[in-house]
């Protein structure tokens, strides 16, 4: 009976997801093309990134609506008028984690794995919006791109584990984004996500009921981390996220 309920809720979600995407993506594409004809590139990119956030926002709220048992709780998310940009670093348990970044009311670009670029349509949109594949980008190019985005006022979201955790533990962090932080002196904001590990679990598209919690911690200014080297900085941030997720899961 429980399985039937989950199957029904998944059908409801995916039907709504595809129906919405089929209607929204062509409409938003047309909107972006019209914008590109009239407005300068910087404005168009800003709009495109907001459009991606709107789409993500609707998708995550679709499964709140279609899944009566799924809750999303978020705490401390920056306000729209926050003085950015920021570098958000986040633990990573599920493919759905990237969607929760739509809750951030800022212009953001995500540093992602290779596979999101291979998703039909979405991969193209992500590339157009300047999303960066860490594994396919040499560090010098990665640093140049992210530094330019930060200079333009665009915040960066990174999942420094590089891949989803298979055991809910926070994996070792990669230092690339922390090297950029040390160079650009941008505040780093730890974001902790719990409960997403089964929504959906690794290797499956079946969403399961649960409660996803997203907690944003206080931004850490360069004055607080600038004395660290990249290795100690990444481990310092990792420990902050480990400690906070443990508190959240108590």
């Amino acid at each position, binding site marked *: 009976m429980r399985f039937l309920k989950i199957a029904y809720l998944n059908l409801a979600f995916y039907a709504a997801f595809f129906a919405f995407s089929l209607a929204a993506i062509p409409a938003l594409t047309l909107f972006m093309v019209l914008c590109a004809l009239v407005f300068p590139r910087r404005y168009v990119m800003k709009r495109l990134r907001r459009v991606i956030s709107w789409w993500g926002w609707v998708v995550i709220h679709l499964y709140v609506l279609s899944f009566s048992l799924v809750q999303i709780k978020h705490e401390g998310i920056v306000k729209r008028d926050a003085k950015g940009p920021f570098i958000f670093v986040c633990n990573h348990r599920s493919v759905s984690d990237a969607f929760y970044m739509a809750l951030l009311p800022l212009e953001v670009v995500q540093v992602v794995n290779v596979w999101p670029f291979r998703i039909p349509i979405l991969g193209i949109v992500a590339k157009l919006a300047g999303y960066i594949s860490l594994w396919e980008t040499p560090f010098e190019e990665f640093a140049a791109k992210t530094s330019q985005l930060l200079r333009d006022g665009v915040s960066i979201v990174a999942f420094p584990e590089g891949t989803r955790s298979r055991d809910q533990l926070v994996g070792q962090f990669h230092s690339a984004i922390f090297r950029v932080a040390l160079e650009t002196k941008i505040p780093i904001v730890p974001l902790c996500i719990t409960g997403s590990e089964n929504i959906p679990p690794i290797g499956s598209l079946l969403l399961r009921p649960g409660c996803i919690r997203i907690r944003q911690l206080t931004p850490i200014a360069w004055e607080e981390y600038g004395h660290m*080297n990249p290795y100690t900085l990444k481990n310092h941030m990792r420990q902050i996220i480990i400690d906070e997720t443990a508190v959240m899961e108590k």
Partner: protein
Amino acid sequence: MAEQDIVNLVNGVFMESFEIPGEKLVPEAKIFTDLGLDSLDIVDLVVALQKKFGVTMRDDERVRAIRTLEDIYNFIQILKQENRK
């Protein structure tokens, strides 16, 4: 250079450059999974080891085979012997 000297100096590099506590620096410690270094940290490590031991290892293909702390001790030993010849 005695084997123990190499161990002490390599461990010293890890403690100074990466602030890794000495008790974690056991020969079987895996550099990536146990000590948490990534490919960019390895570049920093190579630079620090080159400076400490006066050897050149940056373009040495054998660096790619290093997995554990013990591999580093052995590799430095080999480089030192090669330098002596």
